[in-house]
């Protein structure tokens, strides 16, 4: 018990905390097959970042093709493969691994004051499924990539090129990885918080990871079943989905969306967490309505399970069933609205530091709200009859996934970059990145709203000539969007060489990860700290005791009312 602060009650688990394993010395154990959550976090981010560039290039190919109503560069068959791979890769190989495996792995154990995740070897296994799945997915181009969109509805996906079966295998594999990470994070968050860190003292990013871990753990099994059945039908002709042999194409849609709607929340809940860290830090204020934000995360995760059929309003289910799915979908706006309003209230009365992560977080507020509102237009069944399967849906989902998840990811990368690398980035280049991204993003996806409403269906290699102007507009904006990525890459490449040394806490943030050196040492915390309160009270001394003094951290003295409560 010697390493714990006096007066802190502990459970049996902490008896072993005096013992710190030595850091591995071999290159392979240190950088390739490491079981250190931070190294695995870096690995996820590098791999996911590479896949992001590939999938982004595919997006630029899509936009380039749509410069002309008759298709500017490739045949329809190739175009179908390109957009299908863009969607599949962005969702399964970029956003989900980055928000959970990347940021979750690096930040979450640091924030709860743990030395690692609960199952480090499982973490290692989960990570290595990711590049393997990515390679299988992208290798499918060699045999003919899947061409029926990221949703791969049968029966048309049964006719797809051979790569469609590789797609099944790749997504199945990344699904296992995601499930394992989910189990790992649930156990880590539930059992390994520092003494005194009750559930309602957890940083909100940890709440986001908690919700997402539950979703990944439960929902992914439905996708695995659907994929296995599709694979069996394609390979051995087992008739699950083909109505010619007695199957049901609607079965796939139910199983697919039972996963893929919660997957939307898998992609956004951790980002909600990032926003909830960035806004209070740079407003120098406690996050407004901590409990409401935390509980609304859980509410969204639970409600997210019962809305999947809103993707299927035109598919031909029993008509009256459309109503409950519509209403529950609309109800999700209540917890989401609570979050948005709480974040706005966090800005109110702050002393706002306009750093790059703060810009991305506020940009997120605006673009994500726009995506949420168009979600309403799609949830209302009569309007969905008009909008389903059009560019309106494309606009909506990019406002949620790019304007939401990716903007939030950028906020997170800029925010934790000093912690991950120990160096600062160039703030001016960061501003350029943000403003170019924000303007070009809206220029790319805003026109798609009216393109869809006016009659342009999605997933087409050709379109009517009257839609050309706004398609060209979107394409040129998308080139600017791609250009802004070059600034981002240049900024971080230069940061390694010339970046100013960050120190442990360049932002003056208050969550636990900023209390240790940057980058964090192998063992994270030599002493496991004890936690006295939520981390966001800028007016109070830091609520931690038992930390090794780092970076002018002011230590609190425990008082009667802030006596730490063990979490187990």
């Amino acid at each position, binding site marked *: 018990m010697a390493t714990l602060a006096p007066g802190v009650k502990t459970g049996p688990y902490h008896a072993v905390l005096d013992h710190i394993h030595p850091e591995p010395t071999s290159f392979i154990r240190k950088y390739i097959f490491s079981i250190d959550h931070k190294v695995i976090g870096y690995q996820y981010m590098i791999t996911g970042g590479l896949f992001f560039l590939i999938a982004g290039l595919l997006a630029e190919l899509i936009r380039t093709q749509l410069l002309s109503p008759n298709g500017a560069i490739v*045949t*329809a*068959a190739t175009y*179908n493969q390109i957009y299908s791979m863009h969607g599949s890769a962005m969702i399964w190989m970029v956003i989900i691994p980055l928000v959970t495996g990347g940021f979750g792995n690096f930040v979450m154990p640091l924030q709860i004051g743990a030395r690692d995740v609960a199952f480090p070897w499982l973490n290692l296994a989960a990570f290595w499924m990711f590049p393997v799945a990515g390679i299988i997915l992208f290798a499918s181009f060699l045999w003919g990539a899947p*061409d*029926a969109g990221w949703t791969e*509805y049968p*029966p*048309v996906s049964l*006719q797809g090129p051979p790569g469609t079966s590789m797609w099944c295998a790749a997504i199945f594999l990344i699904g296992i990885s995601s499930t394992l990470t989910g189990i790992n994070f649930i156990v880590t968050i539930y059992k390994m918080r520092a003494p005194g860190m009750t559930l309602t003292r957890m940083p909100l990013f940890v709440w986001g990871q908690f919700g997402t871990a539950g979703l990944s753990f439960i929902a992914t099994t439905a996708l695995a079943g659907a994929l296995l059945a599709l694979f069996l039908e394609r390979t051995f002709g087992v008739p699950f989905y083909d*109505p010619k042999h007695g199957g049901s*194409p*609607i079965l796939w849609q139910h199983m697919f969306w039972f996963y893929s709607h919660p997957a939307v929340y898998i992609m956004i809940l951790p980002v909600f967490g990032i926003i909830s860290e960035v806004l209070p830090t740079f407003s*120098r*204020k406690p996050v*407004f*309505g*901590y409990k*409401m934000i935390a509980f609304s995360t859980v509410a969204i995760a639970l409600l997210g399970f019962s809305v999947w059929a809103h993707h299927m309003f*035109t598919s031909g289910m029993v*008509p009256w069933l*459309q*109503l409950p799915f*519509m*209403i529950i979908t*609309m*109800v999700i706006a*209540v917890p989401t*609205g*609570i979050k*948005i*309003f709480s974040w*706005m209230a966090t800005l*109110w*009365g702050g*002393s706002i*530091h*306009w750093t790059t992560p703060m810009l991305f977080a*506020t940009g997120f*507020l*605006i673009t994500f*709200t*726009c995506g949420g509102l168009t979600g*309403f*237009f799609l949830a*209302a069944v*009569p*309007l969905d*009859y*008009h909008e*389903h*399967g*059009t560019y309106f849906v494309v606009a909506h989902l990019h406002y949620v996934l790019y304007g939401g998840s990716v903007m939030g990811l950028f906020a997170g990368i800029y925010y934790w970059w000093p912690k991950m690398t120990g160096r600062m980035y160039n703030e001016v280049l960061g501003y350029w990145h943000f403003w170019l991204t924000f303007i070009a993003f809206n220029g790319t996806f805003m026109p798609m709203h009216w393109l869809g*409403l006016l*009659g342009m*269906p999605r*997933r087409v290699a*050709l379109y009517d000539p009257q839609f050309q102007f706004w398609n060209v507009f979107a394409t040129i904006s998308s080139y600017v969007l791609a250009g802004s990525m070059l600034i981002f890459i240049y900024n971080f490449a230069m940061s390694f060489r010339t970046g100013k040394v960050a120190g442990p806490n360049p932002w003056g943030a208050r969550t636990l990860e900023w209390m240790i050196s940057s980058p964090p040492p192998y063992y994270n915390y030599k002493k496991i700290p004890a936690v006295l309160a939520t981390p966001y009270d*800028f*007016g109070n001394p830091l609520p931690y005791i038992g930390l090794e003094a780092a970076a002018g951290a002011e230590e609190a003295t425990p008082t009667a009312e802030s006596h730490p409560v063990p979490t187990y």
Partner: protein
Amino acid sequence: MAQRVVKPRTNLGPGFWPVTAFIVVISAIMAYFTLTSPWPIGLVPAGEPAPATDALFRFLGAVGGAIFNIVTIYTIYFGIVFAKPKNAGPNDIGVQIHDAPVLEFWWTAIPTILIVVLAIYSTKIWLDIQNTQGDVLTVEAISYQYGYQFRYPNLAQPVSGEMHLPLNTPTTIHVTSRDVIHGFWIPEMRIKADMVPGLINTLRVTPTVAGRYPIICTEFCGVGHGAMKTMLVVQSQQDFSKWFAQQGGAQSTGSGGGGIPLASGSVAAGTALFGQKCSACHSTGPFTQKIVGPGLGQIFNDPAHAKLVNGTDPTTQDVANLIKNGYQGDIGTMPSAAMNAISNKDIANLVAYLASLSKK
């Protein structure tokens, strides 16, 4: 450690109320233009149920625009007036406020009420659409890779190419597919259904404006997906009849299949045909002896059958029409004669056979 100075703040911020007034005014102006717009989504409403859908779009547009203004304008405003002053020290902090239960109550309650209103209004519009009158004319739209065919009552052959509908005629469109899932979207009518193989989806529409409107596939269906579209021609009853006659059909948009000649029906041929085409779903027992559909042994003298055909005892012509047009209703779905590949001659044989069963 020096105690940090907590910034005192007695008002909501400089210019808070003018900004709030600006939000109200701009939202009201936007709402006015949205609510009075004749074509809120930019397309002419060319038939029922488009006006109902547009009304919902206007309402959502007005409410959504206001919410967007609230979030965006306040966020930008807070970002400007609460930016850290240049002369502020490193320890400058914001107002240390954790929550405001009254505020949180209202921003939970008001959206909840809005959602209740919206859900009720959407449900009302949804009911309108579900209850849109159809059935005066019944057309089947059958898709394949990559095109559409349309089957009209009394036409022996399906029509390829463009779909024709007469003005102001409540029309039911049954859609299905021969191969993969396709979409059937008429933007100007705001209606859409997936065309799913093995499943019949139903759309109801009453065209009110003559013209040519695109019919577009909205579910990815293969390499030809982008080019898979045709036109809907909405024309006057006279022009429609002319077109219909050219297709080789007698003009009858009434009950559909009005004049199937039944006199020459052969019981023997009907018996054989029943075994091939019907017995998978229908037994020859009483009504309650179901396989998929009801038993047909007593079809002409069993009162349970009467509700299929408007509450009166079914006539042979009623049964012929049912076989011709198919059935979709509270006891299930039966494909039409066209989908079952049954000719008018076959129908006559089947009716003769069914009549012979009922006489026993």
